[in-house]
C-alpha cells in the first residue's frame, strides 16, 4: 500500500516558486491497477517521479507498506519494491538489453529468462538481447524494453509514466495486453499508470484525476470514467483505428 500525505512540490520558475503538486493526499491499495489522468501540465508525471524518489517533496510524507520513505533515495525505494518506467527511456552507450534486464531482475539471469520478458512486450528476443540500448533503437523499441525492465523487477508497485507516449498503434494494443497480464499474475502488487489514453483508463480498477497539482476526483473506474469521456483526460489513441481496434 502506498500513501501520500499532504505532499507538495514546487520548482523554481524565474526566481519564483511554482507549485506543481499541491497538498495531495491519496492511497494506492495492494492488488489494484490505478490510472492517474488529467490535463497536460497538471502534475501527473511529477507525482510519479515523487513516488519513485527522483524528485523530493517540499512538504508532506510518502508511506510505502507502512514505512515512511520520504527521505529514502531512489535506490532504497527500488530495493523496497518500487519500479519505474520512464516516459522517455534513457539511452546508454555500451550497455545492452540483456545487461539492463539482468540489472533490473537483480539476479543472475539466463538468456532464456531475459527473453521471456522481451517476448512479453512483443520483441523477438533473439534480435534484441545483444543490442545496445542506444540511439540505434527506435522510440517504440526503447519503450518496450523499458517496460520489459519493469516486468523483470517483479516489483510491489510498478509505475509507468505515460507508457503509450512514442509507441506505435500496434504496440499500443499489445501494451494493454501486457498490463492486463500483469494485473492477473501479480495480484498482491499494484500498478500505477500515468496516462490519459481512454483504452488504458478502461482497464483501470481505479482512476485518479489530477489537475493543477490537486486531486480533482478519485474513485472506482466504473464511476469516474464516464465523466471523463470526451475530455482531455480520456483521449482516443487514433480516431480512425479506434472503432475497429481489437484487443490483443
Amino acid at each position, binding site marked *: 500500500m502506498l500513501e501520500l500525505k499532504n505532499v507538495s512540490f514546487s520548482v523554481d520558475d524565474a526566481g519564483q516558486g511554482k507549485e506543481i503538486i499541491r497538498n495531495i493526499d491519496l492511497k494506492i491499495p495492494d492488488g489494484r491497477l490505478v490510472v492517474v489522468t488529467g490535463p497536460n501540465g497538471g502534475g501527473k508525471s511529477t507525482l510519479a517521479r515523487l513516488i*519513485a524518489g*527522483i524528485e523530493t517533496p517540499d512538504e508532506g510524507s510518502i508511506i510505502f507498506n507502512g514505512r515512511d520513505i520520504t527521505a529514502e*533515495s*531512489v*535506490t532504497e525505494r*527500488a*530495493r523496497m519494491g518500487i*519500479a*519505474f518506467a*520512464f516516459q522517455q*527511456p*534513457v539511452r*546508454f*552507450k*555500451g*550497455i*545492452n538489453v540483456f*545487461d*539492463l534486464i539482468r*540489472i*533490473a531482475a*537483480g539476479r543472475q539471469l539466463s538468456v532464456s529468462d531475459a527473453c521471456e520478458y522481451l517476448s512479453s512486450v512483443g520483441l523477438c528476443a533473439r534480435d534484441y538481447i545483444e543490442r545496445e540500448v542506444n540511439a540505434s533503437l527506435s522510440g517504440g523499441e526503447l519503450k518496450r524494453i523499458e517496460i520489459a*525492465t519493469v516486468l523483470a*523487477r517483479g516489483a510491489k508497485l510498478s509505475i509507468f509514466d505515460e507508457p503509450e507516449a512514442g509507441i506505435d498503434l500496434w504496440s499500443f494494443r499489445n501494451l494493454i495486453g501486457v498490463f492486463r497480464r500483469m494485473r492477473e499474475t501479480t495480484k498482491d502488487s499494484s500498478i500505477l499508470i500515468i496516462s490519459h489514453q481512454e483504452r488504458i483508463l478502461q482497464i483501470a480498477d481505479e482512476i485518479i484525476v489530477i489537475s493543477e497539482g490537486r486531486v480533482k476526483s478519485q474513485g472506482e473506474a466504473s464511476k469516474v470514467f464516464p465523466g471523463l469521456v470526451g475530455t482531455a483526460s480520456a483521449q482516443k489513441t487514433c480516431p480512425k483505428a479506434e472503432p475497429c481496434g481489437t484487443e490483443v
Partner: protein
Amino acid sequence: MLGLNDIQQRILREVADLHTVPVGAYNIRANGRSVGRQSTENIEIIPKTDVSGLEIRIKPGTRNESVHIPVVLSESGLSEVVYNDFYIGEGADVVIVAGCGIDNCGTHDSRHDGIHRFFVGANAKVKYVEKHYGSGTGSGKRILNPVTEVYLEQGGYAEMEMVQIEGVDDTERTTKAELASGAKLIVRERLMTHGSQRAISAYKVALNGEGSSADVVSRSVAKDDSYQKFDATLYGNSVCRGHSECDSIIMDNGRILAVPALEANCVDAELVHEAAIGKIAGEQITKLMTLGLTEKEAEEQIINGFLR
C-alpha cells in the same frame, strides 16, 4: 608456467588472457628476455639480431591460426625498446594477441616501448588484440609508448583492438596506417586513465588506394586528475571512405583534448569525424538507480559498458 612467478603469471592473464602456454605460435617475454617461444609450420618467429625484437613470418594462406607475443615487466627500473615486425602472407587469416603488463613495486620508472609493424599481404586478414596494464604500489612510473604501423596491401584487412584500462601512468600511443586499394582498417581503442596519469593517442591513417576504408573509434574515460589527448588524422588520397570517432567521458578533474582531423586530397574521398566529450548523463545514473543500483554501482556499470 615457463618459470614465471605469480606476479608475472597474473600479468599474463590480464594482458593476454593466458592461463597456460598458448596453442600455436608464441613468444613470451619477461623482464627483457624471451622465456618461451614456439613457431609452427605456418608461423615462424625469428629473433632479430641487430635490435631487440622479433620477425614473425606468416605463410600465405595460413588460416585460423594465432600468434601470442605478450610482454611482462616485473623488475622496477627496467626500460626497453622492442621492434616486432609481422609479415602476413597473401590470403592468410590470423589472430595476433600482443599486450604488455608492468608491475612496478619499486621507486624507479619501468618502461616498455613496443614498435610493431604489420605488413599485411594482398587479401590477408588480421585481427590484432593489444592490452596494456599496470600494477604495483611503488612510486616508480609504469610507462608504455607503443608505436603501431600497419601497411595494408590490396584487399588487406586489419582489425585492431587496443585496450588500456588500468595502471599505466604515462603513455604515448602512435598508430600509423597506409591502405592500398580495397584495403580496410578497423580500430577499436579503449582507454581509461585515473590518478595523475597521462595518455596521448595519435593516429595517422592514409587511404591511398581506390575503395579503401578506415573506421577508427576511440572510447575513453578520464578520471581524477588525469589527462588524455586523442589526435587522429585521416588522409583521403583516393576514392575512399574514412570515419573517426572519439567518444569520451570525463569525471572529477579529468581533462581531455580531442583533435580529430580530416584531409581530403581527392574529390571522391568521403571522410567523417565525430568527437564528443561529457560527463555521465544524470538520467543514466537515475535510471540504473531505479533498478536498484547505488549511485556508485550505476556509475561503474555505465563505464564498464562504455569501455566494453
